[in-house]
């Protein structure tokens, strides 16, 4: 395929990216709103356009199990899921990270039941926050396409060897038709070398994976994982830098918009960043010194970049897309509070939880959240969270 720009549904662009990445194995079970990604991949394989095994498993638990097996032999492996599907695969999801298997997943973020809902929020991904995967959040179609390649590059790097989830908002991104630039196959081939796995399963070099570990060794195994996830950070930066050098599209763990001279910033993760930027543009015209801070990398958490962006601001208005029931607020806000605790020049944090299960958060809502949040910060009302728009 030559370099081309086309108007295309984001799910289809992502599936095309997976095919361009020349994956060896795809194992997935269809679930809304991820369905178009795996359906299109199934067509690509069935039509003979990609020499890969497409395993139509009977459940998500099996999908992740197949992925573990294929990644363990050094095959480039992709899957995709959402919500209840992620919940069903959660047992093996954690094992994939512990066994350091470089699987790439498109996680089309959707709310968890109940009430049963097919629409978008971040309650699914937050339920596996501590599983040891790398989590990238994307904001639009181009970022979804691009980060399929960066995800494989990061996951399979011998210094990393970790599964990577590319989180994209269900429907808001998966079902949107947008202009997306496709890179040519040769560019992708150069960017994404073949998988070279040190301890791949092979009869000539037998190894055991997923073994039993006594209390005498479990702590050391977890430390090894923790250092592995921390160390992935420099490879993530390198993978994004090289992608930017090739394509001109640059990615950073924390990205900002009009934040340098801002007194307060709205913080988003995922597709909300796009609307936030538009609203900030209009508020700037009214003289509000407001900017946007966007988290692209959720794990490993980018402490240094986040502090660099946040310290010196008066306050941050953080939008979360999930509730931590009975907890301190949304998961993003509580982590940001933790990252800033005791730091000189730390801004206060006002936390809104908004857009649960796809409830629209339009420009007027962002405007309300920013202005109301600013007023709350000025009055020192920075504890807990506000569930935006809740009736009653």
């Amino acid at each position, binding site marked *: 395929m030559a370099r081309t720009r086309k108007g295309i549904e984001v799910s289809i662009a992502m599936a095309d990216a997976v095919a361009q990445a020349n994956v060896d194995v795809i194992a997935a079970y269809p679930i809304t709103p991820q369905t178009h990604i795996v359906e299109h991949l199934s067509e690509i394989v069935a039509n003979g356009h990609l020499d890969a095994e497409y395993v139509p498993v009977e459940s998500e638990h099996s999908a992740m199990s197949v992925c573990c097996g294929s990644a363990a032999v050094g095959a480039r492996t992709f899957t995709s899921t959402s919500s209840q599907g992620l919940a069903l695969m959660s047992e093996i999801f954690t094992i994939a990270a*512990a*066994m*350091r*298997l470089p699987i790439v997943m498109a996680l089309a973020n959707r709310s968890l039941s109940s009430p049963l809902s097919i629409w978008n929020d971040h309650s699914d991904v937050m339920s596996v926050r501590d599983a040891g995967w790398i989590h990238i959040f994307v904001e639009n179609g181009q970022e979804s396409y691009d980060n399929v390649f960066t995800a494989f590059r990061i996951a399979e790097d011998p210094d990393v*060897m970790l599964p990577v989830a590319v989180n994209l908002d269900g429907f808001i991104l998966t079902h949107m038709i947008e202009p997306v630039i496709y890179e040519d196959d040769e560019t992708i081939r150069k960017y994404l070398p073949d998988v070279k796995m*040190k*301890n791949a399963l092979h009869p000539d070099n*037998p*190894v*055991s*994976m*997923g*073994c039993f*570990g*006594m209390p*005498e*060794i479990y*702590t*050391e*195994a977890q*430390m*090894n994982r923790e*250092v*592995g996830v921390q160390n992935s950070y420099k490879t993530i930066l390198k993978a994004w830098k090289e992608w930017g050098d090739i394509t001109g599209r640059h990615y950073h763990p924390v990205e900002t918009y009009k934040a340098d001279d801002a007194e307060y910033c709205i913080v988003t993760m995922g597709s909300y960043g796009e609307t936030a930027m538009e609203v900030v543009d209009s508020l700037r015209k009214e003289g509000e010194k407001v900017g946007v801070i966007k988290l692209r990398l959720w794990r490993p958490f980018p402490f240094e970049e986040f502090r660099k962006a946040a310290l010196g601001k008066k306050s941050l208005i953080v939008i979360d897309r999930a509730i931590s029931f009975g907890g301190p607020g949304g998961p993003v806000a509580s982590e940001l509070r933790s990252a800033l605790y005791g730091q000189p020049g730390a801004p206060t944090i006002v936390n809104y939880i908004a857009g649960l299960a796809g409830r629209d958060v339009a420009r007027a809502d962002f405007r309300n959240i920013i202005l109301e949040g600013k007023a709350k910060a000025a009055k020192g009302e920075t504890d807990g969270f506000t569930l935006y728009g809740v009736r009653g």
Partner: protein
Amino acid sequence: MAKPMDKITWQEIETGSVVTEIGNARQYETGSWRSERPVVDAKLCIKCGVCWLFCPDSSVKQAEDGHFEADLVYCKGCGICAKECPVGCIKMVSEEG
């Protein structure tokens, strides 16, 4: 012989806790778990091998004369061999006694 498990540092663990030394479960001497051990009455044994088949830990060995006996380095004393023996020639004997 690999390093004892309680001496291994986190830096020495293979990525993904992969075990590259095949069959190293042999170094784990589970016989220390035992509270009872199987004792075979060779006069009754018909050398059928049912105890060898049923042992969940592959801890029954066949001697040169064809009789079967427990490998006490690994035998956990579960008693399945005694339960399954068709002629009742295996008795579980307390380790305390």
